């Protein structure tokens, strides 16, 4: 008994010491999270029920659900949401196969693979503004590539101003965005591909499986985590896409290529509706979290990837 009691005391002492050390180590992280994430989120949530013109000292008037009502009944919001959906569709239909194909290429045993890998990743290293400006100039009807080709061929046909045409302009931006991020997402898939044991592929080859069958029955099921990472990054990224559209079209003309993030920005900084802008932020947060949970559920471990 005395022996047990002494052990118990020592254990208790160690436990208390451990807890103290743990808390001390956690405090900086908790503080940073609280100051830079939790407090702003709570403040944004509260502000989304108020009206404030962004003026220091001005009264923040409580207006209940009015900001949400105005947003949800505004056709510009639904147009912006549709543009985000276009981005997601482009992400899954164009970017995902492209990035996966590139990943298959750079993990295969062909000569000069390092050069290819660098080339595919290069657009991502350029930076969004540089890429956006470059493509804006390329597509410019007055002095862009098509204009130069026309001059070279000696023809004088009208060149469409593709960034000014509704729906077409958002798809142009999507293609540029996919071109830029193909290399980045290639790395996600390449990481998944190199983690698959080579022996599995060799065994399948011995059993007479074709290249496509090996991808379908071995590669894809074992890369579910890579697809999950891609899907979540794609969905949340498309929902809050801002920079590339802002740099190429500024959400115009007449807001037709706007996205919820651009609306969030303009409501706050152009129109000084900071409450409504916060409501946009809350809507984006709720949608982002919900869609991430749904994606996680769809791609959970015990489910097979359906092809």
């Amino acid at each position, binding site marked *: 008994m005395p022996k047990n009691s002494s052990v118990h005391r020592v254990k208790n002492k160690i436990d208390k010491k451990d807890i103290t050390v743990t808390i001390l180590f956690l405090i900086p992280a908790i503080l940073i999270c609280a100051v830079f994430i939790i407090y702003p989120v709570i403040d944004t949530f509260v502000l989304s029920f108020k009206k404030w013109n962004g003026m220091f000292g001005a009264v923040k008037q409580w207006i209940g659900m009015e900001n949400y009502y105005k947003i949800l009944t505004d056709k510009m919001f639904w147009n912006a949401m549709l543009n985000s959906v276009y981005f997601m569709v482009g992400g899954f239909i164009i970017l995902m196969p492209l990035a996966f194909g590139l990943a298959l290429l750079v993990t295969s045993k062909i000569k000069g693979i390092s050069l290819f890998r660098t080339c595919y990743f290069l657009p991502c290293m350029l930076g969004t503004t540089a890429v956006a400006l470059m493509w804006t100039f390329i597509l410019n009807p007055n002095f862009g590539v098509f204009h130069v080709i026309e001059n070279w061929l000696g023809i004088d046909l009208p*060149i469409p101003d593709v*960034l000014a045409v509704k729906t077409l302009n958002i798809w142009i931006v999507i293609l540029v965005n996919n071109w830029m991020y193909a290399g980045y997402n290639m790395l996600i898939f390449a990481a998944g591909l190199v983690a698959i044991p080579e022996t599995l592929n060799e065994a399948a080859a011995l059993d007479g499986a074709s290249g496509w069958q090996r991808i379908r029955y071995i590669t894809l099921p074992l890369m579910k985590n890579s697809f999950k990472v891609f899907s979540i990054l794609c969905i949340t990224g498309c929902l809050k896409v801002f920079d590339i559209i802002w740099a190429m079209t500024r959400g115009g003309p007449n807001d037709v290529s706007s996205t919820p993030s651009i609306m969030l920005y303009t409501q706050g900084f152009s129109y*000084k509706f900071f409450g409504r802008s916060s409501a946009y932020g809350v809507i984006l947060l709720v949608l982002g979290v919900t869609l991430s949970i749904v994606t996680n559920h769809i791609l959970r471990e015990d489910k097979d990837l359906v092809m």
Partner: protein
Amino acid sequence: MKRLKKAAAICLAGFTALSTVGVTGVYAEEANYDVDNMEFENVELRVAFRFTRDSEIDGQAKWYYEMVDQFNQENEGRIHVTDESISTESDYLEKLTTDFASGDVPNAFVEYGGSRVKEYVEAGYLLDLTSYLEKYPDWKDGVQEFAWATTEFDGVEGTYGIPWSAYQLCLYYNKDLLEAAGAQEPESWDDLVDACGKLKEAGIQPFNYSDKDNYHYEHLIGVLALKAYGPEIAEELASDAESYNGEKMVAIYQKMKDMIDAGYWGDAILSTDVATERSMFEAGQAAFFIDGTWNCGTFQNGSDRTLFDAEKIGVTRVPYIDEAYKTVEMGGGSDTYYITTLNQSEEEIAATVKFIKYLTTVNAINQMCEYSPTTYAEKVTIDTGNYLLNDVNVIMAENTDSRLNLPNYDTNSSATDTIRNSLQALATGASAQEVGDNIVDKMSAYE
């Protein structure tokens, strides 16, 4: 006890009396508007303007930074000015909005007046300069009367800024191209349409009109409305006596639409910015260019000066729609310095006034005009030899009336952005009526 009470009463009375003297003294000091003769000690000022240091082509920026350096040198140990300039308008405005939201505002900033700064004035965060201008009548008299419009606000008494630049929209034209097409300098809108037809027939592009920057259509709509219905249209629109989707305004949008449909405006309106449009005009790729009077200096300092040096650029008024309003123009004061009071000490405010006064005397602006010949709010007395500027000065002297941008008069602070965004739809196939309805719909959403 009685003695103690008496002593306490005397002490309190003395303290109260002394306090009053102190307050009076402070008040007397506060009421001192003679900033040139004030004593300052290590006052740090932050000013947010839209210049770029080391710019090779912007004469105004060159002049400004020389003035700042000179001011800091002359006031060493007393006042020091730190520049917080951002040249890109949207970034600049974003920073200003954030500053006013956080309460950490610069001591002075530049804006265009009207609805863009009205909220700051109404909140009491900008300095009323009336007393300072009364103290220095030469400073006040140095500014042209029309330019004060950017500093005065309906329902608020006082003068809340010092304008330093002035502008008016003009029509620039390439003399050689007009001659080649057999066209004349247009006076009326019909003349302009006629000239565009002749140019098109001769294989010359009349305009490479731009609205990528999103303000060009709004400027033109404004000046055409003034030249069709007179200056009162500005107040009528602001007071809702006239509507942006009413018959009058739709008729103006239709004139723009007709130019687009005829191909006179060019093919890349929304992909072209003003700098590109100007470059194409300078390169002889378009016969006309509608923009502000600041281009007199820009043509002179530009990279392609062939047309300017050969005096092949002409300038005239934007064509009228109703001859009765031929000399009514869109323009007035433009860039204006505003001094903030939010969380600023009396000493900082006085030092800021001293700095802004330093920048806006007639002598200072004369120097600026030498660096960048254009139209200014102050009564510039030097001749820069810029032939376009001379012509513009003659035109401006004959103006009978002028107004700023139409949205500036609106009480809805979203008016400028809403109208500018909606007008872009003209270039994407929307009808004139649809554009008008879109403006009204959007503005009602931001009431």
